[in-house]
C-alpha cells in the first residue's frame, strides 16, 4: 500500500538518537565506559506504515523501541513526534504529565505473553487499566469498552473476569494486543510480538495485527529477528548492527538488492522451508561474534566479520547515506561497487 505523499512531517522522526548505558565499577561506582546500545539512529516513520527493525540480539533494536517509548531517557538526539493537533513535539525532552499524555498514543506489545501480563489481575483490569488510570472511562462503560476490545482481537468477552493463566499463549498475546489498543493509540511498537508463538498461532496473530492496522489506521514499529515475518508485515525495513542502522529500504529492495554486506549475510542465514534449496547456492557464514557495543571496533563495526572489508573500512566509520533514488540507504563505504547476492538467488520456482 503506497502512503500518499503529503507535505506534513512524518508521524515519528528520530534524529541522531543515542542511548548509552554507563558501566560502573568500584566502590565509588565510577563510570568506566558506556554500552552504546543505540548510537546515532535517524529514521522516519510515516503515518500508516509498518517499519520493520531487524538485527541479531545485542544490535540495539529493543533498546531503540524502548527509547522511542521513553522507557529510557535517551543520551542525546531527538524523537520528533507529530501529535494529534499536528504540532511536533520532541519526546526526548518531555517528562511528567506531558509524557503520560503521549503514552496513550504510543503503545507497546511485548514478546513474552507470559511475563508481560500481571498474573494477579483479571483480563478486564489488564486491558482496562490504561483507561481507568487515565480516568477515561469507569464502571459499566469500562466493561463495554473492554468487551469491544476483546472482540476486536478475537477473544470472547465472557472471559474478561478470568486470569491470564487460563488462556493459551496465543490468546495471552491477544490480551497484550488489546491492552495496547485500549487507549486508541496511533503508533504501536511491537517488540518480537510474535516470536514466542507457535507457527499456526503466529500466522493468526500476524493477520490480526494487519487487520487492526487497517481498521484503526495504526502505524507499526515492528521489531523482530525473524526475517520472513518482517518481510511479510513491513513496508520498509531497517537493518541494525551494533547500535546503528546499516541499511534501510522498502521491503522488496532489501531482499532483491541488498546493499550492505551484513544484510547479505543475514539473508543468506535464513532457513527456508524447502528442502530442495539445501543443495542450492552457497551460504555466507559469518565468523566471529557480534561486536561488543561497549568497545565497538574502529571504523565500520562490521569490518571484522565482513568478507569485503578494506583498509578504509578498518579506519573510517561509514554513515548511513542514500544510495539510490528509490530511497535505498546503506552505511557501507563500498555500497555502490559491491554486487551482493540478493535473496532471490536462493529461491526456486514455485510448483504445486
Amino acid at each position, binding site marked *: 500500500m503506497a502512503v500518499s505523499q503529503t507535505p506534513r512531517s512524518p508521524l515519528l522522526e528520530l534524529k541522531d538518537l543515542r542511548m548509552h548505558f554507563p558501566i560502573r565499577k568500584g566502590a565509588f561506582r565510577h563510570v568506566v565506559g558506556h554500552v552504546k546500545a543505540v548510537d546515532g539512529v535517524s529514521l522516519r516513520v510515516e503515518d500508516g506504515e509498518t517499519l520493520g527493525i531487524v538485527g541479531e540480539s545485542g544490535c540495539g533494536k529493543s533498546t531503540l523501541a524502548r527509547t522511542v517509548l521513553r522507557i529510557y531517557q535517551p543520551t542525546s538526539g531527538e524523537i520528533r513526534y507529530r501529535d494529534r493537533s499536528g504540532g511536533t513535539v520532541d519526546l526526548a525532552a518531555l517528562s511528567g504529565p506531558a509524557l503520560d499524555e503521549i503514552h496513550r498514543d504510543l503503545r507497546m506489545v511485548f514478546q513474552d505473553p507470559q511475563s508481560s501480563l500481571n498474573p494477579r489481575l483479571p483480563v478486564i483490569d489488564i486491558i482496562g487499566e490504561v483507561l481507568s488510570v487515565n480516568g477515561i472511562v469507569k464502571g459499566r462503560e469500562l466493561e463495554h469498552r473492554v468487551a469491544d476490545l476483546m472482540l476486536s482481537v478475537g477473544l470472547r468477552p465472557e472471559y474478561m473476569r478470568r486470569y491470564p493463566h487460563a488462556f493459551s499463549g496465543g490468546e495471552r498475546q491477544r490480551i497484550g494486543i488489546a491492552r495496547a489498543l485500549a487507549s486508541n493509540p496511533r503508533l504501536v511498537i511491537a517488540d518480537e510480538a510474535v516470536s514466542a508463538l507457535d507457527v499456526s498461532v*503466529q500466522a493468526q496473530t500476524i493477520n490480526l495485527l494487519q487487520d487492526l492496522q487497517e481498521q484503526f489506521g495504526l502505524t507499526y514499529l515492528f521489531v523482530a*529477528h525473524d526475517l520472513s515475518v518482517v*518481510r511479510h508485515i513491513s513496508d520498509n525495513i531497517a537493518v541494525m548492527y551494533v547500535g546503528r542502522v546499516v541499511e534501510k529500504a522498502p521491503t522488496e529492495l532489501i531482499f532483491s538488492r541488498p546493499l550492505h554486506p551484513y544484510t547479505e549475510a543475514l539473508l543468506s542465514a535464513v*532457513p527456508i522451508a524447502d528442502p530442495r534449496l539445501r543443495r542450492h547456492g552457497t551460504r555466507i557464514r559469518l565468523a566471529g561474534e557480534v561486536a561488543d557495543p561497549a568497545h565497538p571496533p574502529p571504523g565500520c563495526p562490521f569490518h571484522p566479520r565482513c568478507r569485503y572489508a578494506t583498509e578504509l573500512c578498518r579506519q573510517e566509520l561509514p554513515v548511513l547515506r542514500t544510495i539510490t533514488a528509490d530511497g535505498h540507504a546503506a552505511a557501507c563505504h563500498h555500497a555502490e561497487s559491491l554486487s551482493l547476492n540478493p535473496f532471490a538467488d536462493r529461491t526456486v520456482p514455485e510448483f504445486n
Partner: protein
Amino acid sequence: MLQIPMNTDPDFAMAGGRLAERDLLIEVDDLRTHFFGGAGSIRAVDGVSFSIPRGKTVCVVGESGSGKSITGRSILNQVPRGGRIVSGAIRYRPDPAAPAIDLASLDPRGRDMRAIRGAQIGLISQEPMAALSPVHTIGNQMMEVIRLHLKMGKKEAREHAIETLALVGIPRPAERMDSYAFQFSGGMRQRVCIALALACRPKLLIADEPTTALDVTTQANILDLLGSLQAEFGLSVLFVTHDLGVVAEIADEVVVMYVGRVVEAGDVDTIFHAPAHPYTKALLQSVPRMHGQPTERLAIIEGMVPSRFARPQGCSFHPRCKQARAGLCDQRDPQSVGIGDGHVVSCLLYEGGQ
C-alpha cells in the same frame, strides 16, 4: 484429487510403511507417556511410533503441546516429574547384530539406563544457560561426564574434554576449560552443550529446539556444526523443533506430531512437497513465504491446539480441519496407513474404502 496408491496392510504401516528392511538405531513402537495430576491425566504422548535410522537426522515437528519434547525425553527415559511411560517400546539397537534393548522397560533410575543416558544418548536442550551449571567451570562439567562414563583418569579426561571442545569450534579450548558458562556468548554456550553431549561419543543425539533461542546467523553455524559432526561420527540425530525452515535444512526424515500423536511421517522431500495430512498441509501454508508476493494474507489454521485435558473425540485435528467430515472424523480414531515408501499418514481420508 490425486489418487495415491494405498497399502492398508497393518504390517506395512507398522514397519514405517517401508518395504525394505532398514538399519534402525531406534524403533519407537506405540509409545504412551502420560502425566498424572490432580486435574486428571494428560496423555502427552499417546501411541507414537516412528524410527530413527542409523546415521540419519529425524526431525520431530509440532506446535507446543504436541508432545514432541516429551517424546524426546521418553527416549532418554527421563520423563519430567509426574509423568511416566505407560506402555509401548523403545527398541534401541546399538549393535546391529545384537538383540535390541527396550529402553522403555528399563528403570529410569537404574544402573542400565544411567549407563546409556549421557553416554550413548546425548541431549542438547533449548536453553544452554539452564543446561549448564553456573557455579562450575566448563572443564569441571565436561570432566565429570567423561570420568563417569568413560572411566578415564583426571589427566586423560582433561585432554579428552579439550579435544571435544576443539571439535565443536570453541577457540582456545584449553584456556576456556576454566571459564564459567556466563563467560560465553549464546552461540558459544550452545557449542559447549553440544560438546558435553558428545563428550562420550554417543550413538544418538537428542536435540530439543537447540537453535530456537539463537540468532539466525548463529543458528546457521550451529546447524553446520551438527551436520559435520554427524558426518564425522555417523551420529543419529533426533531433532525436535517447530521451525519448518530448520527442518527443511537438516532433516532426512520428518515426523509431524499433533496433540500427542504422529499425524504424518515420511522423508523430507515428501513431507514438504507432497504432504498428505491436512494438518501438515496447513502448517506448511501458515509459514510466511520468503518468496512470492509478500503482501498476500497468511493462510491460517482456525482455532487453536486443543487443551491437553479435553482432547476432541475421533481425530484430534477435526475441529480445525477444513476437510473434516461430520459423523466420521469426529467419531473414529484414524489409524496410520502407509501411502508410499516410508510415507505414513494418520487420517481417515486415506483409510481404504471411504
